[in-house]
């Protein structure tokens, strides 16, 4: 019995492995390898990501070659020189101590293979750091700031801010200056350019370019505290005419101004509800969230909130029910977030510098009013 149990168990185990590993190359909805997933680095849509994927595949082939040759030698040795039934148990194989020619030869061969990898690597390092000259002329520039746990985008040439969705023209280079407001974050846009960290006290730079108009997903890649997992963003590459239209819209006022938060938008169904929302906004939200696109305060700028596609830093789609949930119980969507708990005082983290929605105790109808108001900010 005990003699047979071992091969049975070993066989069973390898069967499990044979089933499971191919199985896990499918994504949940049946796509093979999820290669076109929202954040797949193997589905490049810009020159830098393309270069990175190319080098990855090059190294993959080199290492696969090594795996087959070295692994093949190992497998052959395991098979050929194993002790078989009936072998003399006292057999002593010839004691070879080594072979200088083989040893040096293998060192030289592995060094040569590394050169194959090193040359394109050098090219890739330079490409990621420097915008190529032919793209320099019509490049745009955006300041990116990482906050716990959202993204601020400043369009320096036009002097306005937006949050959590970076919009830019397809086919043109976008130079990003990366800042951090609190802790280290990392700006990662897999389909366009890999990642660069945002570090307090220093300004890092990177550039991105989308070959075609498209809608991309990105995420913070450096652990940044409680809600790190919920710090996503979207990147939208627009055709030239839509980009100009977007630029023009972002610079329009969305509220009356001078202390009046009422929207400038005319055709509103339930004006009374919206005005109630404006009042609540002024009372509970306005200290952190600016609705003037030229002004950045502690929270994400909401001047054109109604025209965004996602909320809660890319974690949810911008739909009324989702927004309701987000405003009613933000702490259940993003753990530890400041909108609910309030901002801690930097000099004494046990005290709150600014109260959060936890203390506002908004009713469902009040949240509905806020939702209605926010969608008028387009």
């Amino acid at each position, binding site marked *: 019995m005990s003699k047979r149990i071992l091969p049975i*168990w*070993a066989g069973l185990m390898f069967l499990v*492995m044979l089933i*499971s*590993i191919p199985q*896990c*190359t*499918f994504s*949940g909805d049946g796509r093979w*390898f*999820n*290669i076109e997933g*929202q*954040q*797949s*680095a193997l589905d490049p849509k810009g020159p830098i*990501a393309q*270069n*990175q994927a190319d080098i990855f595949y090059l*190294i*993959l082939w080199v290492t696969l070659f090594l*795996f087959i040759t*070295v*692994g093949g030698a*190992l497998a052959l040795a395991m098979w050929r020189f194993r*002790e078989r039934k009936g072998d003399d148990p006292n057999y002593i*194989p*010839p004691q*070879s101590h*080594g072979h200088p020619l083989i*040893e040096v030869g*293998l*060192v030289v061969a592995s060094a040569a293979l*590394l050169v194959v990898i*090193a040359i394109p*690597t050098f090219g890739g*390092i330079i490409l990621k750091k420097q915008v190529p000259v032919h793209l320099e002329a019509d490049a745009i520039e955006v300041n990116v700031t990482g906050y716990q746990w959202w993204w601020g985008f400043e369009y320096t040439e036009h002097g306005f801010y937006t949050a959590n969705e970076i919009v830019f023209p397809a086919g043109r280079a976008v130079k990003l200056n990366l800042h951090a407001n609190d*802790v*280290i974050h*990392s700006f*990662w846009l*897999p389909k366009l350019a*890999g990642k*660069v*960290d945002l*570090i*307090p*006290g*220093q300004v*890092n730079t990177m550039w991105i370019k989308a070959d075609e108009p498209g809608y991309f*997903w990105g*995420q913070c890649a450096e*652990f940044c*505290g*409680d809600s790190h*997992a919920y710090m996503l963003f979207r990147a939208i590459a627009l055709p030239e005419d839509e980009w100009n239209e977007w630029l023009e819209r972002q610079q329009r006022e969305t509220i009356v101004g001078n202390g009046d938060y009422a929207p400038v938008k005319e055709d509103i169904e339930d004006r009374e509800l919206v005005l109630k929302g404006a009042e609540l906004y002024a009372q509970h939200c306005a200290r952190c969230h600016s609705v003037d696109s030229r002004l950045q305060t502690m929270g994400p700028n909401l001047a054109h909130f109604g025209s965004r596609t996602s909320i809660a830093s890319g974690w949810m789609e911008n739909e009324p029910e989702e927004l309701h949930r987000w405003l009613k119980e933000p702490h259940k969507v993003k*753990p*530890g977030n400041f909108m609910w708990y309030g901002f801690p005082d930097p000099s004494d*983290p*046990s005290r709150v510098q600014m109260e959060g929605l936890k203390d506002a105790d908004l009713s469902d109808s009040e949240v509905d009013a806020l939702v209605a108001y926010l969608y008028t900010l387009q």
Partner: protein
Amino acid sequence: MSSHHSPDSAAAHSEPTGLWHRPLKKTGWVGFLTTVDHKKIGIAYALGALFFLLVGGVEALIIRLQLMVPENELISARLYNQLFTMHGTTMIFLAVMPLSAAFFNYIMPLQIGARDVAFPRMNALGLWCFLLGGILINMSWFFDQGAPAIGWFAYAPLTDRQFSPDIGTDFWIMGLQILGIASLVGAFNFITTILNMRAPGLSMMRLPVFTWMTLITSFLIILAFPAITIALVELMFDRHFGTYFFNVDGGGKPILWQHLFWIFGHPEVYILILPAMGIISEVIPVFSRKTLFGYPLIIFSGAVIGFLGFAVWSHHMFTTGLGIVATTAFAFLTMLIAIPTGVKIFNWIGTMWGGRLRFTTPMLYAVGFIWMFMMGGFTGIMHSSPPVDAQQQDTYFVVAHFHYVLIGGSIFALLCGIHYWFPKVSGRIMDETWGKINFYTVFVGFNIAFFPMHILGMTGMPRRTHTYKEEMGWAEPNFWATIGALMLGFGILSCIIQMIYSYYKGAKSPNDPWGGRTLEWATASPPKEYNFAYTPVIHARDQVWEDRHGTPEKRMDKIAPDPEHGIHMPDQSWWPLITSFGIFFACLGIVFFRYEFTFFGSLSYTNGIGLLVVGLVVTLVGIVKWALEGPGGYHLYPDAEDMEEIRQSQSKN
């Protein structure tokens, strides 16, 4: 065995027990707490490390259960962050390092024919500092904000009091400081032992590879740990006294932490893997019945890995905005490390080639190690290239990579070592069928758990994330990874149960059950207190193999101990234990420096300074008394059986 006390320390032995006198009792609690025997200390290291391996394993399994399905709400984000912080810290500092230290302690002196390590009491200090450091870090779970949630890398400024006001971070800082002491005293001890206490004739180029790797690892520890010690002191000052080492508001630089951390952290990786390579280099020749292929090159490449390990730390920082020159230099140096690592793999295969392979459980783990380490090495080459790393950094691809080198590498090798040396330590052999069943479970579970993570990383799943959205398409690989992790956990648990079972009920083992090649197999299983009754005189690299199969002039000579003097053994002591408790309380005082306890609803400050002063006084008294007590020592005489063995070998020659 008769015992007699050395005349030079006879005065110290006038009282048999008591705190102010040298303890003499070898058994019971006193014997355990005051031991200086490298074998007992080695076993204690192993038991502590295996306990923490289980703790870290449970933490890992909770992490995996949380990630099993998208948008799972099994545990909170904060608990998740605490778990991965503690999992990393526990596995590196409390499981793999001390398990390696257990082998250094137990096996290395036997391999060089020594009676003990050079500084037996310092060895005990290392053990107690390891255990108390592990306890200090894990104590944080029992305080109101719980364990630290900063990651094992603890990047500033997230560790600043502003962002992590919890006491867990302070426990983590001071716990690592104590563990640093444990590692450093161990390393100095092993270096001194290997350089000075080798048996006559055991030249450096005859040293067993495991002992060589112990030496190299110890040098790495000595050179790497000061960097983290300094970084931790700076962090402690930032948190307690408002200095600005890493705080931008006062002109500090967060990136400084990363440089200090990784100039320690990368050699640390080799501290974890070089002992593993040493074990594999011992096991493969034994079960191939062949001498190690290219011994000098294996030693040399181990040393090269050690040197290069200090020149590649910034490859952990390719995405932090280093310049083109720095990035390129660190990328190319990192690629270079592939060469000495590859050399080792070539030479292990060369050893097996033309041999007669016996696939016992240790050999299965050793071969499993080569396969898995090869996979981990290849993915390592991938992110040595910064453009590729720009995508893979901080994703599950990196998680897959380092688990392939740390589980498939270090843990497989340590399990290999446990199965291989278990008969030497316990005198009993672990059951082969059960051992092989465990091996297949561990091997397959490991691959199912970690292979899918390569796919997850390339399709965009970042590390250290509490959950993920279903539309990302990461559900399937995550589900299987969790299944695999459960299998792996089951396999490791089964291994540990088998160890405990074999210790009490296993079949009795002869002194050398495997046909070993190195000196530890020449002595009894388990070895007597004095390891070797005789002084071995070494004439060849694989001395025990030569004794059995070699030419007569290569046989070992055995010099009997002086009949008057006997064998000189070190005395036990209370002071290592007392000193380590002093250090522990001093560190605890620093942890509580700014902490407010709440007793029955009212606020009261702890007197952290009081505890610190008490701790420092105890430490100081411990060290002074330790010095005044002197090394002591007593004499043992080998029993008749041992003397007979020596006589026989002498008459043969």
